[in-house]
């Protein structure tokens, strides 16, 4: 069983703040971590390997610094790390990211591909299903339990708004995982030592035989036009006085609006 986990390095906090004066984001010294949902994907991959055998590869696309995320994955027990890095990948939206990952996975080969349900910096949840489409394999999003796994098929539970669906799929398959699925393991010392020594395989655009028109900004159908802070409400009323008075006014207002 060849298992590939797609991971992403994201800023350590999702609570990046905005500098109110310059209207820009403050990200000073925020270190990169593995996207928390991807940690569950790694754990899922390792558990499948423990049960069914095979190898687990962590794959990420990013700048050279993203290598640390791969080493962290190796310290948890992942067998190898593959870094997709090339200036040509810069500015990729979800479409171009999924395309690039797909070309890399075609190059590497895989029976099972696991992604976190979304990345906490973008929250789009698009790359997984798009990647499956590019690879022309089935996918199952929001997997919350793996019921059974065999040589050529897998049965999982997909989390829905009103419960869950039990889904069987042939292999190869891609699935994205939610936090309920498992508790990611801690790294091990042997893993950490292996991670330190591990040779990270690096792939560039030419290695994966990608069409440069489909890469990076050039290959991205969407563009960010601008970013902005949300504006203030116009009918805002700041209640004045002592706490007692403020509460008094509020309760009267609520009564006037027939909310009480």
């Amino acid at each position, binding site marked *: 069983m060849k298992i590939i986990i797609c991971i992403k390095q994201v800023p350590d906090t999702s609570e990046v703040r905005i500098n109110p004066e310059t209207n820009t984001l403050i990200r000073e010294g925020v270190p990169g971590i593995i996207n928390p949902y991807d940690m569950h994907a790694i754990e899922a991959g390792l558990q499948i390997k423990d049960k069914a055998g095979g190898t687990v590869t962590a794959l990420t696309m990013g700048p050279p610094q993203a290598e640390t995320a791969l080493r962290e994955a190796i310290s948890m027990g992942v067998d190898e790390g593959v870094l997709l890095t090339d200036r040509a990948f810069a*500015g990729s939206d*979800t479409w171009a990211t999924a395309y690039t990952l797909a070309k890399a996975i075609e190059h590497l080969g895989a029976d099972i591909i696991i992604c976190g349900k979304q990345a906490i910096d973008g929250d789009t949840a698009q790359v997984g299903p798009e990647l499956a489409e590019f690879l022309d394999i089935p996918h199952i999003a929001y997997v919350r339990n793996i019921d059974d796994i065999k040589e050529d098929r897998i049965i999982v539970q997909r989390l829905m708004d009103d419960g869950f669906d039990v889904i069987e*799929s042939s292999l190869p398959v891609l699935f994205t995982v939610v936090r309920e699925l498992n508790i990611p393991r801690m790294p091990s010392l042997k893993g950490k030592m292996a991670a330190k020594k591990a040779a990270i395989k690096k792939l560039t655009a030419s290695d994966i035989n990608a069409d440069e028109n489909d890469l990076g900004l050039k290959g991205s159908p969407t563009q960010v036009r601008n970013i902005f802070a949300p504006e203030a409400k116009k009918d805002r009323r700041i209640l004045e006085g002592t*706490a007692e008075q403020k509460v008094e006014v509020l309760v009267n207002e609520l009564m006037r609006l027939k909310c009480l």
Partner: protein
Amino acid sequence: MFIRIDRDKCTGCESCVESCPYGAIVMAEGRAEINELCQFCKACLSVCPEGAISEIAEASDIKEKEQASGVWIFAEQRNGKIPGVSFELLGAGRRLAEELGTQLSAVLFGSDETKAGELIKWGADRVYHCDDERLNVFNDEPYSKMLSALIREHKPEIVLAGATPIGRSFIPRVAASLRTGLTADCTSLEIDRETKNLLQIRPAFGGNIMATILCPHTRPQMATVRPRVMKAGIYDETRKGEIVKVNTDNLRARTTVLKTVKEVSEVAINLQEANIIVSGGRGTGGEKGFKLLYELAEVLGGAVGASRAAVDEGWIPYRHQVGQTGKTVSPKIYIACGISGAVQHLVGMQSSDIIIAINKNPEAPIFNIANYAIVGDLFEVVPMLIRKIKEVKTI
């Protein structure tokens, strides 16, 4: 398009370095340089005092743009029922279609003709309906194959879907196969008057700031929209429209839905249906703070919500979470206690009718969207509020 820094103009002042939300500007030999982390958000353009940073546009192919017309929404159904988000999509779609002077169509897979008729009454001019019963249960591959084929055939310029487990799961496959852009979880959709492009507005960076996304060169422009963010269309019993039957050939699926299990959390229902929500954030300080909020919710007959921060701290279970990664709610009254108001939270509750914010910090962004702002300690204000409401109620 890409961003360029003119090395001759750059004085090495580093003001652009801090402005970059992606940390993509680095100093090299005393000059600023843009590396591969750049996401082309253009935050740096206005920052440079020397005007050394500029964007360079590339020519694009607009053939496919001119051919495309019409606004489509994907109306999902589960167990034959159409959820509210589909009517909200019709509301948003109607507005966009009118602005573009084009038609609004809905796509319905599974379910029956009465439901297709409902979509017309809610604002659709046309419904592409495929009533093959194999489509009654959601399955990614047949859904994405069918929708992709329909879009290829009819070439709409805009396709919207709900940012629900169904929409978020299969719509990306459609976008991938059509080689077009898809923007997730939009909270607002506008038409650019000049270019007629769809402006897709969504929270970015874990929901700390808003971004406007464009899909300028390819069609259709695709977006998912969170439930309860847009206003539903106007229901008109008499509205007439056309129902177009769609054939199903070649429904290939490598996944099989073995069964669907209902497992409804009461809190989820309570939260999304509550008229009043009392919500707590990091400022509640812990379970003790939430006890107060439960008390307030009880006297008001409301439900209790929470911000991501409070849930991450383990003070309250995830099912109470309101925000981009939690539930979206729009109650009559939303009382935010000790919530600073990261955009990630705001997008989940800003369509509430009345927002009351209680926070110690007068600078907290939650006050920007509040109708009533109380700067104060929630441990002082909330007990007082509980007492006052009890008094009023006994009169």
